[in-house]
């Protein structure tokens, strides 16, 4: 059932190189490159994620505000009261 190792794909003309884990640092440039990379990833997605979320929040606050206003008494209804 399903695919098996040895029968997955034939790939030709691709050369891969690797270096031993004992010859390299485990987390190279974790902060020096990592933090600018987080900023890059944030910039590339913020204008697609944020606008709908902001619209959602504004709808929520507007809706609750209008509902609260609707529950208030209208002073015009009581103008002729003595």
């Amino acid at each position, binding site marked *: *059932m*399903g*695919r098996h190792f040895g029968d*997955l*794909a034939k790939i030709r003309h691709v050369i891969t190189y690797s270096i031993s884990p004992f010859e390299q640092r485990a987390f190279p440039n974790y902060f020096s490159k990592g933090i600018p990379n987080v900023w890059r990833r944030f910039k590339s997605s913020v204008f697609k994620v944020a*606008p*709908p979320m902001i619209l959602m929040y504004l709808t*929520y606050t507007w*809706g609750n505000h209008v*509902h609260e206003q609707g529950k208030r008494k209208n002073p015009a209804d009581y103008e002729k009261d003595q």
Partner: protein
Amino acid sequence: SGVWNFGSLLGLCLITQILTGVFLGMDYTSDISTGFSSVTHIWRDVNYGWLIRNLHGNGASFFFICIYMDIGRGLYYGSYLYKETWNIGVVLLLLVMMTAFVGYVVPWGQMSFWGGTVITNLLSGVPYMGDTLVQWIWGGFSVDNGTLTRFFGFHFLLAFVIGGGTVVHLLFLHETGSNNPGGVNSDGDKISFHPYFSYKDLLGFVIMLLGLTSLGVFSPNLVGDPENFTPGNPLVTPPHIQPEWYFLFGYGILRSIPNKVGGVLGLVFSILVLMVVAILHTSKQRGLTFRPVTQFLFWTLIGDMIILTWIGGMPVEHPYIIIGQIGSVLYFGLFLVLVPLGGWVEN
């Protein structure tokens, strides 16, 4: 990436729910005269009964968090193009929803009784046989003892039906292997399950169990309804009948349509629309990774579902009515029109 963890997390959720559920079933009695008090007995007297009940109730919430995330991953990365796996997944979603619905009736609190009454009454919208169908489901002329006993049985049974469906879901998934964030063929780039995915899944399990336990011990009633601390009473209707949070978006769509049958159809199609996404896939790319227009529409869908969830929990008054109606139109519009259009534009 991490969003591929939700499949295995769903398996963990199912096992957790079955284990805690079996232990709850040892002390629960499915009769209206003793049901509510048997839950109280479990909480107060059974050794660690409070924890088992806690994990079971909040575990249901985590089940839905995981299933919505799994669906979101499927929509974002075009995993639905594995049509058999996807469609069985939709069936699993429906089964989980049914299990959660009947399971919520089991404690026989006010919201158990009245939520059960509202939703089972919707079946009366079926032409000709609607009323007969409802009374057949009820086992009587209203939600009563007959309903509770069978709903407990359905809840127990459906859990294992979900288990069987899960096996079939995985059977089809393993024919193709998983998708990936690039949406490309990865047959030439496989790594062994152990140790890579065994440890990755284990990390996911630890994080989810941490979340579930934290919710359970620090804020166990955060997502619950206080009405369910009152025994179910057919003579007293709660002012605001609403389901648990995971059903609120559908409840919002249901109430937005001012016609009983129309509302029921809206609710049903809000789930079944998932089965047409593969047919409406217009883009030359599989996932949204390199598709900015449709990415924006995806996040609009997420925002819309959050709005519909909020609306589903609000009273049917202005301006919540119009917001719910616009949100419902937007929900179906996104799936049926805007996202296919986005794919075509990006091509």
